[in-house]
């Protein structure tokens, strides 16, 4: 992270903050689907908490994208909701891992482990961004992310090393999800430009630490790290699984039914 942000295009900043917001809103929404459906009430409350954290992150990223956007275009009508509610599937740029369906509790746990450990390392790096706002968002999100990691680890151990049924469900979930993790560690041109400018995280550098940590947890949970050779990509380019369209349909329906209304 050497050069200065002066050379960075504001559109790049908007796009980067938006995609980080997309990751957070999509996983936050998925987690919120658990409310009133968790295995016991303490978990309804706990999952709700984690969901709220992600919604909070999404709102910070989107609000920043909106501010920069309004400043760039001399407007004042772009808000966090513009990004969440008025863009379509092809415009969302979240990593595919986040949009996969809710699944059973093992699926949610396995996905969350992979996401939370990733976020921990990602946010540690984003705190060093020379974009002050992104660094500040990362600072706040990072504390929550560490708690999320502990929680996901605890659940992975309980389910992996619990009963034969829970073990089996966790292994199936990991196998079904693993192929979506590879793109977390890849850069497209946009992110490469921002990495060069010291704004974005070079996520290619996170893989070794991430893999080491999740492998240790998975093995402690008596589970097996799945094969590495299956990989699905495309989230950052808006090339999504069929899950995302349904999520957006539900999330955006009321907002879009009343154009221009305030809530």
């Amino acid at each position, binding site marked *: 992270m050497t050069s200065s942000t002066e050379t960075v295009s504001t559109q790049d900043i908007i796009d980067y903050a938006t995609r980080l917001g997309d990751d957070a809103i999509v996983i936050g929404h998925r987690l919120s689907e658990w409310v009133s459906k968790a*295995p016991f009430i303490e978990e309804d409350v706990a999952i709700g908490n984690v969901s709220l954290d992600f919604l909070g992150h999404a709102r910070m990223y989107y609000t920043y994208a909106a501010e920069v956007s309004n400043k760039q275009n001399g407007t004042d009508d772009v808000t966090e909701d513009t990004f969440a509610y008025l863009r379509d599937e092809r415009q969302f740029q979240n990593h595919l891992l986040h949009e996969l369906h809710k699944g059973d509790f093992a699926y949610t746990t396995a996905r969350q482990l992979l996401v939370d450990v990733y976020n921990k390392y990602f946010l540690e790096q984003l705190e060093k961004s020379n974009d002050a706002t992104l660094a500040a968002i990362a600072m706040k999100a990072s504390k929550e992310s560490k708690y999320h990691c502990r929680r996901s680890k605890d659940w992975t151990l309980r389910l992996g090393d619990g009963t034969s049924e829970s073990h089996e469900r966790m292994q199936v979930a990991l196998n079904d999800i693993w192929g979506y993790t590879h793109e977390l560690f890849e850069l497209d041109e946009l992110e490469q430009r921002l990495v060069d400018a010291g704004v974005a995280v070079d996520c290619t550098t996170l893989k070794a630490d991430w893999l080491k940590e999740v492998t240790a947890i998975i093995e402690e949970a008596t589970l097996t790290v799945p094969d590495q050779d299956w990989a699905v990509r495309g989230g950052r380019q808006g090339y999504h699984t069929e899950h995302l369209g349904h999520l957006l349909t539900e999330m955006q329906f009321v907002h879009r039914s009343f154009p221009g209304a305030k809530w």
Partner: protein
Amino acid sequence: MAEYNKSEAELEAVFQQKIDSEQKIEPKDWMPEAYRKNLIRQMSQHAHSEVIGMQPEGNFITRAPSLRRKTVLLSKVQDEGGHGLYLYSATETLGIARSELIAALQSGEAKYASIFNYPAQTWGDMGAIGWLVDGAAIVNQVSLQRTSYGPYSRGMIRICKEESFHQRQGYVIMMELAKGTPEQKQMAQDSLNRFYWPALMMFGPHDSESAHSAKSMKWKIKRETNDDLRQKFIDQTAPQIAYLGLEHPDKDLVWNEEKGQHDSGEIDWEEFYAVINGNGHSNRQRIQHHVKAHEEGAWVRDAMSAYKQKKSQRKINADTAA
């Protein structure tokens, strides 16, 4: 302890004297079996209502029309889960396990507030539920802060603080709708029309018809009668409706100067009993949803206890080896 030397009648006299002098009854105090049963019924019904009440609003978390509203609604529904937890814990002090209480809910033996058998259809219903349903609940709960059973009373004090935030979030939703587009205002009116009367029914039958009232009043489990509490709610809600610029659903509502309160139209008690007896839109759905989540979570709960057991066994083994 001196209690062992006293006859049932003497114990009951001491108990009633405590209640009459506004002392709280605590879990280890002697209490009549009927008092205990009555409390278990009322407190568990209250706990179940919090938990079942997560469903109609949970139904709109994924559709909330702005990120701010989504966040606030999710926080609110999460609080309800928390309230359910306090109340189950407070009920457990009476010597009954949460699992027994949940089994009674799922078998239909225990009740929850009938208001949650009404479907949440529009975003306006999130406003009406927060404002009217939580509003009616608060009127009742404020009164219950003075209930005679200590753990219940303390739980209510804590819950009331959060409930007033819930009611406000509902009213804020209604204000935004009422001052919004004509379609939004119509949405607010429609939700008010559908939830106003059921909210009045939340206070239960008229005092003359209420099965549990007399004893509950004597024991100060209940502090005010159904009709008195309902009147408070009617009086506090009328100006709120006027402020929103919405039409009052009760066409017979008039201010009675002499009494210093509103006279109002009669509640449709046939509807009240029909919904209580299972004919609401959502009665079966609410319980089925609860049972499904509980059954689908069984393997998770099993895994938790298996893991816990393995862990403590490993610790024993390690300690033995050392």
